[in-house]
């Protein structure tokens, strides 16, 4: 298998020691970024990091659970709005952030129960999740009147909530995090999510989840209630997407109905496809690459950013179906083979 060339072992295997080394180096690199970049650059990189958390939620669900949820943005938006409404109502942000993770999980639990225990097919799963996020978008857009108030917070329909507060220190409500602080929090949460998911895949739960993606009927015949595992994975992914949504609100001091829209939903799929869903690290790279490109194209006056992104996606789907990272692995395997470096008797 091509991924083995890059040392990317099967998810059930403990990561090799050097993996921890690479992660530590990456963390060191990311956490020193504020030392040599200015605030504006830091601000846009924070955005990538937050969106990468959203990409992880889909990558986990799709790449390891075999469930293509086209509407992870439903939980992303829900997380964002939950945070904004609670933080503005209570003036306290730590619990708002926690509940912004919990509420999307509860929503995912209810939605997932009907979809997964109802045994709908994969295609309907994708369609229903997409429709759910679009319904939420429409619903939020329709809240522009004065009567749409939660506590003291107006939902503002189209305009979103532009007064979403930044995160405070849990022990000091006056200490609001600035742009560099938010960068650290976003980077920290991304690393925690990534390592957490990587370790989750080592557990009994993770291994069974992967087996269901491989062959659900076999897992059932062995006696696993596959619905329970898929449902739990869906709930976990919902929580991660909710976390990303709340962080996005914190990052931009804004939440709006566009968090739920088709464009946003499709972008998550694009990040994961570009990065390659068979790894967790790939989609993080995919998110950063695609978002960086989007931003860069925006400043170049190209005008047709979506068109160019569309072309890139088509090239990816047609030429590098596995995504960037696994494709690099395939090329490395080929090169190794050609150079005769493959050890005899060992399948590469």
């Amino acid at each position: 298998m091509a991924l083995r060339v890059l040392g990317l072992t099967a998810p059930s295997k403990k990561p090799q020691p050097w993996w921890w080394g690479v992660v530590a180096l990456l963390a060191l690199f990311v956490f020193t970024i504020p030392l040599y970049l200015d605030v504006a650059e830091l601000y846009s990189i924070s955005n990538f990091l937050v969106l990468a958390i959203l990409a992880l939620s889909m990558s986990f669900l799709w790449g390891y659970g075999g469930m293509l949820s086209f509407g992870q943005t439903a939980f992303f938006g829900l997380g964002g709005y939950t945070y904004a409404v609670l933080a503005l109502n209570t003036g306290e942000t730590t619990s708002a952030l926690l509940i912004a993770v919990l509420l999307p999980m509860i929503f995912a639990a209810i939605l997932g129960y009907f979809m997964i225990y109802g045994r709908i097919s994969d295609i309907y799963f994708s369609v229903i999740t997409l429709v759910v996020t679009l319904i939420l978008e429409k619903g939020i857009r329709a809240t522009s009147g004065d009567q749409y108030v939660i506590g003291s917070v107006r939902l503002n329909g189209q305009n979103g909530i532009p007064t979403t507060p930044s995160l405070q220190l849990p022990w000091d409500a006056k200490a609001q995090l600035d742009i560099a602080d938010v960068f650290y929090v976003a980077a920290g949460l991304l690393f925690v999510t990534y390592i957490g998911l990587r370790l989750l895949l080592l557990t009994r739960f993770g291994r069974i989840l992967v087996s269901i993606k491989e062959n659900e009927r076999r897992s059932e015949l062995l006696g696993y209630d596959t619905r329970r595992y898929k449902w739990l994975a869906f709930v976990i992914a919902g929580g991660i997407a909710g976390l990303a949504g709340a962080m996005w609100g914190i990052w931009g001091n804004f939440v709006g109905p566009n968090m739920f829209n088709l464009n946003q939903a499709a972008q998550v799929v694009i990040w994961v496809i570009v990065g390659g869903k068979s790894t967790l690290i790939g989609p993080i790279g995919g998110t950063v690459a695609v978002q960086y490109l989007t931003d860069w194209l925006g400043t170049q006056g190209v005008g047709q950013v979506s068109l160019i992104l569309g072309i890139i996606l088509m090239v990816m789907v047609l030429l590098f179906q596995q995504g960037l990272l696994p494709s690099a692995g395939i090329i490395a395997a080929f090169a190794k083979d050609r150079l005769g470096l493959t050890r005899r008797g060992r399948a590469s």
Partner: protein
Amino acid sequence: MSEDVVLETRDLEKRFGGVRAIAGVSFKLRRGELRCLIGPNGAGKSTFFKMLTAQLRPTAGQILFEGADITKLHAHQIGRLGIGIKNQVPDVYDGLTVHENLWLAASAEAKPTAARAKVDEVMARLELGPLAERLVGELAHGQRQWVEFGMVTAREPKIILLDEPTAGMSVEETNRTAQLILEANKSATIVVVEHDMQFIRQIARYVTVFHQGAILAEDTMANIQANQTVKDVYLGKSGSA
């Protein structure tokens, strides 16, 4: 023979549209038996197996396991009760290693340490040790069949259903499989669907003949071979060799 019936079906029926694939099968399996199901293609053997394991819902009739009605249970509940099946098409995790395949099977029932021990034991018994870290999808057909057989037995089921366990195997592989089945029969009741008459003679004591979705005959191998009706519908055509 004692009447300790472990599995029974009563007037089991499966219709696909207007076709009665299984037309009222009443079948009894005694504990510890090694039963062979034979019959021409389309006789309903695989459909019968799929109903026993809840992969298909019967249109009518009842399935009883140790006296309890299991007709309406889900596939995973059937698995937990201790009915294991190897489907006709190898049903394994192609993208995972041999070790992981067996671990997933063993872990369905056993605690972590017991599961690990079970995996080692199955690998030793099936001589899969050298292949432990290979992906199952990369293995030869016969080896994949054994991995699946290993998975079914690792679960320590009370009943093992094997749908064409020797399909695509060489003569030596078939002989080895026969031994494995006889060995597994020491702790489990086994039902085998096979076409290979040579193989059936090797293992069978008692044979059920399916024909057009119903049981045509049920007897010892010797009597079945002498049975004129069976010869007409089945053995006469493909099994006389």
